[in-house]
């Protein structure tokens, strides 16, 4: 995946239109019309039509001029994929994904089980981390979701590192062939404790488990069950991210402090930035402040270690 620098036919590209508009684009020269004809693949954007066959051969990150503006062709990293993908379920966002990967101790070569697959946003991040010699076994009780996920994994180039199955792990477990072979299990289920016996079966000694739940009651129940199933090092966390907006402004002395004797000691200014509009004669500076409204809660993450040489 790291060797692949240029966009090829049948690649998947994330079309960056603006920071709020990211679209999944499959690079084909033609598309089929309803009546079965093949016509050139033209993708409509607010900046005008994009002739998709023209992007073949461009490097990822390339800027494409359209009639009324430009777009970027981005590599489908798990983060961009998460922003652009069709949400079939509530998805996990990148902060929680980062913490899950770190706390499950994932790295190349690890064997991981995931239930449910959902929209596959976590799956992609797991795959990027465990490739090229690890394996992800992902399960969902929703048939369609599994089908969609398999197709997407393949188109993103993860196909050979993932096994996606339609199964209710609470009832049917993760499969006997995985017994004692799994390094980490991730559960995003309404009743995660129902999958705990199955998880314990497939986990190696000192294997890690993670569970994502939006409500305190689920966490409370899960922790009781984890302890009584011989899990240790329980840790329940929540991570909130606050973004700061950075704005370039033209500095004026506040009208409240216009006493004459202060002119020799001007307000402190930040370094000027060369990139500011050269037509602007004023002195550009900037300030940053946290956003007014931010995500207050996604869910609680509970982690534990499966101890097999006791209990």
């Amino acid at each position, binding site marked *: *995946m*790291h060797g692949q620098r*240029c966009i090829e036919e049948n690649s998947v590209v994330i079309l*960056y239109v603006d*920071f709020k508009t990211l679209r999944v684009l499959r690079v084909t020269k033609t598309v089929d019309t309803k009546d079965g004809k093949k016509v050139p693949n033209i993708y409509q954007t607010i900046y005008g039509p994009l002739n998709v066959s*023209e992007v073949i*051969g461009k490097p990822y*990150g*390339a*800027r494409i001029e359209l009639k009324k503006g430009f777009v*970027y062709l*981005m590599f489908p*990293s*798990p*983060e*961009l994929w998460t922003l652009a993908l069709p949400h079939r379920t509530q998805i996990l966002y*990148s*902060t929680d*994904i*980062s913490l899950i*990967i*770190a706390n499950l*101790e994932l*790295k*190349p*070569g690890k064997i991981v089980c995931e239930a449910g697959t959902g929209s596959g946003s976590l799956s992609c*991040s797991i795959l*990027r981390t465990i490739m*090229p*010699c690890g394996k992800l076994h992902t399960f969902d009780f929703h048939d369609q979701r599994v089908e969609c996920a398999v197709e997407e994994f393949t188109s993103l180039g993860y196909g050979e590192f993932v096994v996606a199955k339609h199964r209710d792990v609470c009832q049917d477990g993760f499969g006997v062939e995985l017994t004692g072979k799994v390094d980490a299990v991730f559960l995003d289920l309404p009743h995660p404790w129902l999958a705990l016996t199955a998880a314990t079966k497939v986990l190696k*000694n*000192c294997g890690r488990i993670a569970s994502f739940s939006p409500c305190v009651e689920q*966490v*409370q129940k899960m922790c009781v069950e984890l302890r009584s199933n011989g899990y*240790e090092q*329980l840790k*329940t*966390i*929540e*991570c*909130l*991210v*606050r*973004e*700061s907006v*950075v704005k*370039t402004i033209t500095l004026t002395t506040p009208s409240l402090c216009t006493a004459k004797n202060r002119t020799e000691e001007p307000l402190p200014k*930040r370094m000027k*930035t*060369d*990139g500011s509009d*050269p037509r602007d004669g004023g002195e550009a500076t*900037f*300030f940053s402040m946290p956003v007014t409204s931010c995500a207050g809660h996604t869910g*609680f993450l509970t982690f534990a*270690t499966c*101890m097999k*040489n*006791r*209990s």
Partner: protein
Amino acid sequence: MEETSEVIKLNSRVVFCRVGDKRILTVHQKPLYLKKGFPKVNLASAVGKPYGNFLLVKQKEGNVFNLEPLEVGSAKEVDPRLEATGVTRDNRDIVDSSTSQKLTMDEICTRTGSGLLGAEMIDLLVENSATFSSKSEYSQQKYLRKKLEKYSDNVTLMPPSLRLVSEIIFDYDPLSVQNLRPDTLAILLNTAGISCGGKYLVLENGCKGLVTAGVLERLGGEGRLIRITTKKERSGELEAVEKLDLSKNLKQPLISLPLQDLECLNPGFEIPEKDNCFPLAECHVMLKSMGCAVLVKLTENWLREYQVLPDRTHPLVTMSGNSGFLLSGIKVQTSNAEFIYPVGDKSLVEDLDLPDFDKFPKLASATCYKCFLKPGDALFIPSLWYHNVKALDFSVAVNFFWCGMRKELYDAGDPYGNKDPVPVARAAQSVDKAVALLRTLPPKFAQFYGRKLANVLYQKSSEG
């Protein structure tokens, strides 16, 4: 790629966990002193056994403890009240009187024979405490923790992992790693998209090598990690890498590059500090204005940890207040060429100091770096960079041109290397010819085939 050994090996590193004590030790033959007033522990007694829970068992000779694996079913559940961390720092408790314990130290030692107590003996201590039941929850936890720190015979041995190494280093002294909390490290590694086989550059200062260790772990021995080092590289700078106990193969992607070697290429970035967000806000403004990155974000993250116990669920009473700021963005192609109206090897813009924006509106979007040269200074301009020089005073410039390509590719009559290389000039002639030919067609056709041929030209030349 390699498998972590599932049994404990001699001379490897292990994470040693006992109540109130988590650290990374090397499994030596010789018994280890752990702390004052505590007997030696013979880690070698665990060699060949799987990681997990052990009991400290006193040996007949000397004040030395061996590690014996806990047999299946033999362990008593550790008091879950102790799983919550951070309790010891709460100072609102009623002061614990030292006379409230009815059992004396001698009695304890007599009963246990070893000076250490199993988890099941903690009940005895609790039963014999005159004040335990009247204590607040916090005080009870503090009491139990204190007793277990002294007497517990439970030990867990784990293989080192970035999770444990980053927790241990941060908990020991957050300021020693500039408040780089494990969650912030996790977000950093994931946002950077570290994966096996990639090429990464790290400039890490005063974080004990946590970032370097994290990247190396995720590279799995393949790819490249260029670590920029500064003159001040101190010992212990890569403590995290050492503690992670990476094999030679996993360390192989790492190469160091002194900052001095980079400095002449540095286009003027400040080194981000993490005390406050200003340095990163400056970088944010730069990245945005240069147009070289999208989804540029400046974020701060809060971590809340919860104690989850039956009827006693609450966030921990102390938390980390500060783990710095993270700046992220994704690099995209910038194309100055289209903004500066180039024709041949010149720009149409006559006066760059006072440009005519009505005539050249796109110029406003161009990125421009300015610098002043003093006598004796030299400026390195990478090939294919558009540039403009203005003499502020009487000046003699000495130029040196590197020939990155074979000599014969350059125009012999152009010592400044400004002209296109010979093959390009010739190709241009061919293209001119093609254009002249297409122009003979009606405009619609000329346009259509012009695009088609341009596409062919682009694709074929980039394949080469």
